[in-house]
């Protein structure tokens, strides 16, 4: 049984790699690779896997991505952390003070309905080309995700658990610490993966719109001079960042929410 599953896993992995391989080969061939004359995809726009790989390789060797990579990571992480902290705090505040919630509800709904990238030009206008405008954009997405999850987490605390805790002599602080907090954190951590992904979206979009640094900025600059190899290289780096961050948040989620039944398979 065990052997079959591990064999299965290897087979799956090989098949998955093959799909990617085939796509890359087709792309390479269609864009005039392998010495082919007939080009369906113009390499000026579509580049070619081999050209992208060599650009990525030489770029990495020369450290041409380092500064922008760090800039993007920093902005998105600041946006993420600030979004989580403020989302939790405001979530608690609004759940505990219903009148405050009622007062701000239309505003919150309006802002949350706003397609956030549309804020980018405004933020760049106000905060300039530096890191601040990107952090705020990234924060503005993460904040609402965490805020709504915190709020829902507090309202959906199991009333029976509250009863039990109360009967067992817990004071208000102990109820908060042992019943409400774990309940809220289970919601917030369940939304961590989405939050992380959107923190990155915020940072990159901000860099597109107006910046002097960052992977988004470098990509935009490369597009301006029709350096398609570089555009695709950066796309690849962003993809990698996304994958790594997602895996890290999955691991955190697994560790912190190990008391939850695993999601049922479909």
């Amino acid at each position, binding site marked *: 049984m065990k052997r079959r599953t591990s064999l299965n896993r290897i087979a799956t992995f090989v098949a998955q790699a093959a799909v990617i391989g085939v796509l890359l080969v087709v792309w390479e061939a269609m864009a005039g690779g392998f010495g082919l004359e007939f080009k369906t995809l113009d390499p000026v726009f579509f580049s070619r896997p081999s050209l992208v790989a060599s650009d990525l390789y030489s770029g990495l060797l020369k450290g041409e991505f380092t500064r922008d990579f760090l800039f993007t990571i920093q902005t998105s992480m600041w946006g993420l952390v600030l979004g989580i902290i403020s989302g939790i705090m405001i979530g608690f505040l609004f759940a505990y003070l219903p009148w405050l919630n009622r007062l701000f509800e239309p505003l919150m709904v309006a802002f949350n309905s706003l397609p956030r990238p549309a804020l980018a030009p405004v933020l760049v206008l106000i905060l300039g080309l530096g890191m601040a405008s990107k952090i705020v954009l990234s924060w503005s997405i993460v904040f609402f995700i965490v805020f709504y999850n915190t709020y829902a987490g507090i309202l959906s605390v*199991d009333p*029976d*658990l509250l*009863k*039990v*805790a*109360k*009967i*067992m*002599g*817990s004071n208000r602080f*102990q109820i908060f610490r*042992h*019943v409400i907090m*774990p309940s809220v954190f*289970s919601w917030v951590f369940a939304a961590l993966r989405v939050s992380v992904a959107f923190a990155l979206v915020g940072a990159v979009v901000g860099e597109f719109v107006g910046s002097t640094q960052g992977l988004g900025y470098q990509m935009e600059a490369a597009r301006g001079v029709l350096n398609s190899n570089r555009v695709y290289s950066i796309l690849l780096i962003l993809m990698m960042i996304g994958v790594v961050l997602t895996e890290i948040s999955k691991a955190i989620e697994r560790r912190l929410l*190990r*008391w*939850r*039944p695993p999601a049922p398979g479909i």
Partner: protein
Amino acid sequence: MVQSKIRLEHVSASYGNVEDQNVVQVLRDVNLDVREGEFVSIVGPSGCGKSTVLNLAAGLWSPSDGDLSGSINVHHSERKQTIGYVLQKDALFPWRTLIKNVEYPLEIAGMPRRQREELAREWINRVGLSGFEERYPYQLSGGMRQRANIIRVLAYDPEIVLMDEPLGALDAHTRMVLQQQISDLWSASRKTVVFVTHDLEEAILLSTRVILMTKRPATVSASRAIDLPYPRSIMNLKLTPEFRSVYENLWNEFCGLLQ
């Protein structure tokens, strides 16, 4: 004179408020007096208000629930944890392991870690859950969770124990094992217990007194002492002619009252 532990006098209660025209009157003129050291079972049709009575005794009624009149007196010492309440649904903390759940009230009481761990283990062992200490509630069967739910309350040794259909959802075998355990624990400690069940047989097997509640709006319509000696062997007691005659008498009487 044995002290009265829980006394409800002329208690009427209804859920909801008049404005949303959704008032459900649940209790009407309920009188109930539970004395120290009694094991009282409350039986009655489902939805009649048994859980409501326990909530009232536990002090869990809040004015926003609806209207309440009459007087409720619960006598206990100054200690913080004097009431134990085993809820109908097992309300284990999903983020705590079995042992950490049992330890929770002990932690609140300020018992040192070593001591509370030892005590929790003792109780876990007593109901046959050893080996499952580090499991989370979702990893336990319904019967195991319900056992944990019960021992979490008994472990902190409350003066008054309220149990709301604690064995309702269990299979016949587990149920009998737990009935025996509850009976043994009670005859050793002689705590004051109020035990809600919809099973008359279970009520007689465990209790010193059985109380019948009628349909909603409910009131207490009968209260009968069960004069069977302790300690009781649940399995054997069921087969004795004494038990059968008590059971038949109460059954006939209660059926008459519920008409």
